């Protein structure tokens, strides 16, 4: 039977619309950003787009605000992801048996994940509020001194990390729970036959078997944490002062508040490189563990 044109070329025709879309809306823009990073373009400046080579790069690298933002991006990411990993794993292991109420907990775990980050940020701002916030009331009930939380340069980053940990730990928990459910029962059975105690089972069997899942989850989470924007913008706008600016917030301000497109593009190139390295990490891991 003769195949028609669509069927003969289905492997090109089917992905084509999606590919065109991604090229036009992602690849071109990314290339354009890259090009802009070699210019001094400032939207408010009448001189237009001038090619200046690496000058914008030098200007940005000399900028203390930029260096601090890079440091904060990593601080936020590692701070949040380490806690999310430990806490998420612990909770998943604690919940790893059948009991009444498991369904409710699973449902509750989903809530932070689907809640609008901007709104979450605002709710936490009410918690953190120095004069009416419930957290300071808790502190004072425990006879502890009040805390400025997001209004204090010393505590703003940990306070933001806590919100991220609250919102995304359930993600790790759910992924680990799914991973646990998928483990084959054989190694556990033979371990019990061989007389292994629960701790040995946990550290010698469960955790090593979970490692690939957990690592992939943590890297995916890191990629998102590197790009954190909504919560920080909603809660502090990068302040007080510049104390909670990460790369994403800073690049956003350079683009849409100062209109220094060239320098903003340089920052985006850096963010791009950092995220790409993590992305490569995901792919390497996936091939290594044949995920």
């Amino acid at each position, binding site marked *: 039977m003769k*195949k028609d044109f*669509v*069927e003969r070329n289905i*492997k090109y025709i*089917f*992905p084509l*619309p*999606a*590919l065109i*879309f*991604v090229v036009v*809306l*992602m690849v*071109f*823009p*990314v290339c354009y*950003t890259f090009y*802009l990073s070699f210019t001094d373009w400032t939207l408010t400046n009448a001189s237009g787009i001038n090619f200046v080579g690496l000058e914008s790069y030098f200007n940005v690298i000399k900028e203390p605000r930029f260096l601090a933002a890079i440091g904060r991006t990593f601080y936020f990411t590692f701070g949040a992801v380490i806690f999310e990993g430990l806490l998420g794993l612990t*909770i998943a292991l604690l*919940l790893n048996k059948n*009991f009444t109420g498991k369904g*409710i907990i699973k*449902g*509750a775990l*989903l*809530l*932070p*994940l*689907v*809640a*609008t*980050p*901007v*709104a979450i940020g*605002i*709710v936490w701002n*009410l*918690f953190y509020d120095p004069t*009416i916030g419930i957290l300071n009331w808790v502190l004072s009930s425990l006879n502890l001194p009040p805390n400025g939380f997001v209004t204090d340069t010393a505590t703003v980053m940990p306070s933001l990390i806590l919100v991220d940990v609250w919102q995304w730990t359930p993600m790790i928990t*759910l992924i680990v729970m*799914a*991973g646990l459910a*998928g483990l084959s029962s054989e190694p556990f059975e033979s371990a019990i036959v061989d007389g292994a105690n629960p701790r040995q089972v946990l550290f010698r069997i469960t955790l090593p078997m979970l490692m690939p*899942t957990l690592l992939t*989850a943590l890297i995916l989470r890191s990629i998102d944490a590197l*790009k954190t*924007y909504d919560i920080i*913008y*909603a809660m502090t706008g990068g302040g007080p002062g510049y104390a909670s600016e990460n790369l*994403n917030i800073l*690049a956003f301000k350079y*683009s*849409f508040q100062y209109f220094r497109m060239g320098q*903003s*593009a340089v920052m*985006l190139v850096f*963010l791009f490189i950092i995220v790409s390295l*993590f992305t490569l990490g*995901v*792919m390497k891991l996936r091939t290594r563990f044949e995920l």
Partner: protein
Amino acid sequence: MVISRKIRHKILHTLLILIILIPIIFPFIWMVMSSIKTQVDIIAWPPRFIFKPTLINFEKVFIEQNFFHYLKNSVIVAVFAVLLSLIIGLPAAYSIARFKQKKIAVFILVARLLPGISFLMPWYIVFSRLHLMDSYTALILSHILIALPLVVWVMSPYFDAVPIELEEAAMVDGLPQQKSFIMIVLPLSTPGIVTATTLSFIFSWNNFMFSQVLSQQKTRTLPIAVYNFLSYVEVDWGAVMAAAVAIMTPAIIITMIFQKYVVQGLTAGAVKG
């Protein structure tokens, strides 16, 4: 003694569940409580757990602030972005699964991984020149870039799991492959499509940054409207919390209805399978 140990175990277990559960849901409870408090009750010290509820904040949000306008915008943008993503994403995911087009998969998934702001600045420039700022077109296009990778990410393993024999049998009977995709594969993949649709809807619904730049009064979506409540001189916490409740409710209802699918979608990719 056996019984008492059983009871003790049960109490410990319940306690453990509460220790996990309360921190997760307390912010939601406090948000809802604050949304039905008067300003006096909200700024009271110590914080009040018992108070006379009021609906005045919701009145403010929905009647004075024209929240329905932003709600409509959010729905329009999310629905069109998800629909269009399915239309171009499902065939792509099918092709990736059937013809093992790994490179195409990676290419589309990169959009999920790169920071949105690295497209946003060029979009801002181009959309301004095309007079598409504050248009649904620009917003929907930007939100497709959120939804499309999710569709491909969720669906290609799904299509991969549909046995090829089913299609081959149909093709022997003379059904072209594109028709067998629509008539056989898609109906068999309904759970996956539900997962992809739910997740992309929620992610589009929650998106802040794209709308923040690309929309103004006409097409402004809910997250921006909620954020703008903060910009008043004195924060009207009750109204802000009512707005937060209003924006989260649809996403949470959808999540509860499709709970199983949302879990699958969120854990897809990290878990082998």
